[in-house]
């Protein structure tokens, strides 16, 4: 697999292309791109058969090792790639360590090892068993093992430890990669650690630079501990680090970021020059029964940024989630029906919300690409920002009316 930047500017929003994919030479994916966040290879609530009803486009599954760890024994015996094993042989796959939709447990560090928390408890990964796993899974792309356990509040000591571990993992994983016949076509992404400390980021970048010829992309890691709170991170907090790291990266390499970033921050990150994201945001939305309804195109009617279908006001609302949406959920099902399904705790409720959210997110990324191409990303940003502002006003109003009601009681 090769990555080519199609636009000339270095930092500003850019278009790129992933192509020459081994075994899938006819496939070409344009960046900025959202990997489809999965757990054990499935978008939460959506089987691959249902996904075919959502999109026929080629797609990239993001597969967290933490969700595959329990398959160790089976994968050992299995003679195929992870895409086949999870039942989606036509998908491209990108293996990463943690699940960006779940908050990581902090701490539990061991020297040269990273803890992950599977459903059967804590497991330690080091370069060796991580690369064993990656070799077994044979993904099209993977992210080298890293110590990403830093956030805005991490101590200096934790940050420098994270850099030290990440550099050492990088060294060993790349040594393994170079010797691996099975991974010779795999696209390698190297994480950059260093939390919110520019000095540590600089150090990490410098220490990783000798291995540059062997990696095709970089991940800006260590900005958060995954999970729903990533949605709430203010862009101004991450901007200095993102801009700094991007300014130091070789322009021809892919730049990735992970986590449940809000659509507005996604636009801002694209603006800074990020090429690859994931759809984990759709999971946290769906888990809170929320469907995305913000307007993507100019002139598109939208009453709000997102709607919570659990709310009683939808019980007799026979409109689709979003009027002009072409997804399977909006084509056949009403808000009232989804509300009913949620009220009686039926599985189809989450299925329909997720179908819509994924569809909306993929449409959003298509719009981002078109906007970059037409040099109109600012317009899209303004449109989404205005809708988010409305949402916040609305939330404040709700909170204050709630407050006044409580005080009168």
């Amino acid at each position, binding site marked *: 697999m090769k990555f080519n930047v199609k636009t000339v500017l270095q930092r500003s929003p850019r278009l790129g292309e992933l192509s020459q994919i081994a075994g899938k030479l006819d496939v070409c994916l344009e960046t900025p791109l959202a990997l489809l966040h999965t*757990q*054990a290879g*499935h978008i*939460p*609530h*959506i*089987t*691959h*058969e*249902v996904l075919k*009803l959502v999109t026929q486009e080629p797609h990239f599954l993001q597969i967290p090792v933490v969700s595959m760890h*329990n*398959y160790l*024994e*089976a994968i050992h*015996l*299995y003679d195929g790639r992870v895409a086949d*094993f*999870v*039942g*989606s*042989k036509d998908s491209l796959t990108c293996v990463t360590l943690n699940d960006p939709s779940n908050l990581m447990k902090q701490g539990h560090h061991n020297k040269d090892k990273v803890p992950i928390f599977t*459903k059967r408890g804590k497991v330690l990964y080091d370069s060796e068993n991580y690369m064993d796993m990656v070799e077994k899974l044979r993904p099209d792309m993977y992210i080298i093992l890293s110590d990403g356990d830093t956030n805005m509040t991490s101590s200096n000591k934790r940050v420098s430890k994270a850099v030290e571990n990440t550099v050492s993992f990088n060294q060993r994983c790349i040594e393994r990669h170079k010797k691996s016949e099975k991974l010779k076509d795999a696209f390698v992404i190297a994480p950059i650690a260093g939390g919110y400390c520019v000095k540590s980021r600089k150090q990490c970048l410098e220490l990783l630079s000798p291995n540059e010829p062997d990696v095709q992309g970089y991940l800006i890691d260590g900005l958060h501990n995954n999970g729903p709170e990533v949605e709430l991170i203010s862009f101004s907090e991450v901007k200095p680090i993102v801009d700094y790291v991007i300014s130091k990266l070789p322009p021809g390499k892919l730049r990735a970021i992970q986590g449940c970033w809000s659509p507005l921050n996604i636009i801002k990150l694209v603006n800074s020059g990020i090429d690859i994201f994931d759809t984990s945001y759709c999971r946290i939305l769906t888990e809170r029964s929320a469907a995305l309804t913000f307007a993507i195109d100019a002139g598109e009617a939208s009453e709000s940024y997102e709607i919570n279908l659990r709310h009683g006001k939808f*019980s*007799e609302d*026979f409109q689709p989630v979003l009027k002009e949406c072409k997804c*399977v959920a909006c084509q*056949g*099902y*009403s808000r*009232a*029906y989804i509300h*009913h*399904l949620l*009220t*009686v705790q*039926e*599985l*189809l409720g*989450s*299925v*329909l919300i997720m179908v819509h959210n994924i569809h909306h997110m993929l449409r959003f990324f298509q719009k981002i690409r078109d906007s970059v191409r037409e040099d109109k990303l600012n317009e899209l940003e303004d449109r989404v920002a205005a809708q988010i502002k409305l949402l916040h006003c609305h939330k404040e109003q709700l909170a204050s009316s709630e407050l006044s009601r409580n005080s009168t009681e």
Partner: protein
Amino acid sequence: MTTIKSPLSFAILGKCGSSKARVGKITLPHGPVDTPVFMPVGTQGTLKGMLPEQLKAMGVQILLANTYHLGTRPGVDILLKAGGLHKFMNWDGNLLTDSGGFQMVSLLKLAEITEQGVKFESLNEQKDQVMLSPEHSIEIQNAIGADIIMQLDDVVKTTVPDKERIEESVHRTTRWLDRCIKVHQNPSTQNIFPIVQGTLYQDLRKISIADHIKRDVNGFAIGGLSGGESKDDFWKIVHLCTDLLPKNKPIYLMGVGFATDLVVCSALGVDMFDCVFPTRTARFGCALTMVGQINLKKKQYATDLQPIDKDCDCSTCKNYTRAYLHGIVTDLPVACHLITVHNVVFQLRLMKTIRDSILNGTFVEFVQQFMLAIHPDRDYPTWIKDSLTAVNIPLL
């Protein structure tokens, strides 16, 4: 005089030369139904995470929904505003609803049955006592708009020995049938089926049938079975009912859906079945096969790289191994969806095999092989031996 076009026609397409098994086609307002048919249960207006688009692609022709649940939530008002359940749930195939009576008695401990109806403690906080009368049941079922609806019946557990009470229930069920027919608003689009009662008493079953067949209805249901009675008692009642009910109308055996029961009861002449089992069991990781069910949670499947059933052509068996399913079963909702797909397709395939073998004259052989596969040591349960012997199918 204007004649209302019947919302049900039933054509018998073929019969087994030995047993009472038959193949038919029921034509309903939302399309044809090939019988014998198994109807998957979508209690609350949805079938365990399946999109109706998927059910259609599998070949499901009719789904069952529960009146008691839908009457509680979303309720009659919303169903009416939605234009009925078909529209609400985006299902343009056929629907059948039960009367709600069975749920009253099975779910609610404090149900009290009087001539007026079933009185029960509401789960709804606002009203403490609610009455489900025959009229109310039909009102809800009219709002739901299913193609086949059930009369409210006086359900007595098959394990109740009080014959007097059972006799009362037989007569009351017929009186309630008349009340249901009287208030039924949509006779041109919805078929009301009476329910034969009488638990395990042959004489009471005969009375119930004799009364019900005098009514102008398009099909019949056999109720009050599959409630914990012994199989030796069960099959005899089914056998009796299919003997006495008219041959030109479909016969629906309520609450039966295990593979063996479907095969035996098809041989006894039943046309329609329903059961929550295939879809409910999927949630616990159980997948159905022709020789019984497998629980994918079991450790032995952790490294089993075969599909659930190599002869099954469902999307789950085509795309996933037992080992993959083992790793996510009871953990991720998609595992439930994947196994549900298989289990529904399994039921459909079984019924298609039954129909095909009846049509091409190999039903007897099919039943023999089916039973032999499950009991390779020929240690057949007596009820299977007896019931099949009664319809001229000797086991191997």
